[in-house]
């Protein structure tokens, strides 16, 4: 495998957590729920994904369990912001702490303190017949683990759902003008609930992927800012699934570049190369924030009987 192919294949793998977390942010944001607990969801997802995979002996079980735990957090966020109209940022931060604490605690309770942490097997790569033999494109796109395929196909499905179906149109209207949606009989509360739940589940799944492709185990802080970067990516991707995938490639590219030049040693201190993804994101946001068309009701709570709104 050539150096370039190898690099691109790594980038595609590194994209997966960004795609899942960012599509989750986008989905609930499209219904007006802005979840800022990504970093916590990723961390908790990683812990749950690792522990369940270890105990059950199946990575799939780990991913599903992580999704369920994420869904539970999403339910709490969506419910207290929708029904009790608590501030979304504050609740998101509170859930972020809870998730970090829960992740650490679970690991400590199940594994304890040990010098040689147990490992889970990494995800197997699936070879797509014929397509995998295409030069460069084959090994990069068609010889990957199943989560890569799920991320890409899921993103396409999400785009189709949001922009080509009635249900998707209704969902988008809730994030743009919930009062209008409500006046047309669209159930604003249930839309916010289910997108909040699915969104958080996707973030936790993004986290569960980390121990399954990189380390084989869980460590505190292994999300390494990917959750926050995913929020930035959502703006960068203009709150549209297709551009989020493109943006994820850029973010993943930065990550892999930083990692590889660290190993290769290119003359400048590796710490400065490791800063690259974060600095690049800051620079990119200068343009992305001007460009992004944010859902009009993002981060706000809807009160049907409020006499002040509209």
């Amino acid at each position, binding site marked *: 495998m050539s150096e370039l192919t190898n690099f691109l294949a790594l980038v595609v793998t590194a994209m997966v957590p960004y795609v899942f977390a960012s599509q989750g942010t986008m989905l609930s944001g499209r219904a007006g729920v802005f979840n800022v607990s990504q970093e916590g969801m990723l961390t908790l997802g990683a812990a749950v994904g690792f522990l369940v995979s270890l105990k059950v002996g199946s990575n799939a079980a780990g991913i599903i369990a992580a999704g369920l735990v994420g869904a539970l957090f999403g339910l709490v966020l969506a419910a207290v912001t929708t029904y009790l109209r608590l501030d979304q940022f504050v609740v998101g931060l*509170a859930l972020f702490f809870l998730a970090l604490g829960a992740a650490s605690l679970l690991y400590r309770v199940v594994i304890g303190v040990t010098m040689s942490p147990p490992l889970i097997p990494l995800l197997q790569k699936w070879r797509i017949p014929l397509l995998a033999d295409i030069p460069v494109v084959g090994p990069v796109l068609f010889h990957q683990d199943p989560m890569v395929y799920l991320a890409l196909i899921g993103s396409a499905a999400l785009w189709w759902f949001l922009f080509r179906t009635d249900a998707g149109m209704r969902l988008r209207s809730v994030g743009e003008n919930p009062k209008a949606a409500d006046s047309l009989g669209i159930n604003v509360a249930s839309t916010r609930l289910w997108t909040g739940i699915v969104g958080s589940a996707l973030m936790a799944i993004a986290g569960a992927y980390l121990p399954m492709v990189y380390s084989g185990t869980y460590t505190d802080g292994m999300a390494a*800012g990917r959750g926050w970067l995913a929020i930035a990516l959502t703006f960068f991707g203009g709150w549209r699934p297709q551009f989020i995938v493109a943006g994820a490639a850029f973010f993943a590219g930065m990550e892999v570049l930083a990692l590889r030049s660290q190993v290769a040693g290119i003359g400048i201190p590796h710490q400065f190369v490791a800063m690259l993804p*974060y600095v690049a994101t800051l620079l990119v946001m200068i343009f992305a924030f001007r460009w992004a068309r944010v859902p009009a009701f993002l981060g706000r709570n809807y009160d049907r009987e409020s006499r002040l709104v509209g």
Partner: protein
Amino acid sequence: MTSGAAIRYRTGSALRALAPYLAAIVAAFVVAGVVIAMLGHDPFVAFRSVLTTSFATSFGLVETFTKWVPLTLMALAFAIPLGAGRFNIGGEGQLILGATAATAIGITLSGLPMPLLLPLGLIAGVLGGGVWAGIAAWLMSRFHINEILSTVLLNFVSFQLLDYIASQVWPDVGAGFPATVKVGAGAMLPTVGRPALHIGVFITAAVVVIGAILMRRSAPGFELRAVGINERAAKVHGIRTARIAVGAVIVGGMAAGLAGAIEVAGVHGNLLEGIQSNYLLLGIIIGLIARGSVALVPFVAFGISILEIGASAMQRTAQVPAELVLIVEGLILLFLLLSDVLATRWQRSGRKRPPRPATARQATGRAHAGPDSITAMEAQP
């Protein structure tokens, strides 16, 4: 209103203000107790060590106050920008930059005498934190980049910067992990008493008192809170909102920078990996539990310090993992938010009857208590 009624009103409102806190703390401990019991430990043994360790020995008390310093300053780093409606999640980076600046002064000028070197180090720390926050503030005002994201991303940059300085610039090769050599003796904070308590505690107390007075009474403090409550109205009424917001974020960064400088000058004596501990999270939790009120921050911070010091004791005596405490703190915050909403709902349903004047006033005062609302301030003597 007669003075008697006024006094009754004040005690009444104090009780009303405390009730949600008590309810939230009790609820969080109940949940934690259930979790501890499910893990097969005795919740009462655990709680006893969590709550009493700080007061059992003078060593515990000094440890608690030592922890209180960075927690209070980091909570200010979050709460002051929050007053202006800005979320500073970059306290970690600002603390690291403050610690780095203080260390740089302490190492490079290590020969200077204490009366010169110590203030220089602390000032460098404050400026370091301010500059780091200033980057985010500049991106916010110049390019409208969400400050939550920019401050967080700068945290990750600062970790690499710390690693570089501790392992390349002034490395202490014998440490076994990234750490710099020690600063000069003149850069260290004097201590009082035995066990020793560094005087950063008094510096922090002074910062809090001055900060609270300025927030409540000064014109810029008024403007800051006006921006936080309604930025558009503030702008229409002649307040330079962009300047206020930028200033609030930078002042927050300065508080975090001071925390970093004091950690170096009072605790570690050098810059080392992990110096930021989990102070960012705790600072945010404290700031939110205090509802952004600078005057409340030191008290909440003290409570959280007790929990944090008690956590490790709990792990020793009751074998309950210390990580549980972070969950307890998160739950206190969540339950506090919930109890606010419930209290407002009860008041609303209670108000269907024609209210007496005094209760009506309490109701209006409490119902909208946002972060450090001017109402809350006005209601106090």
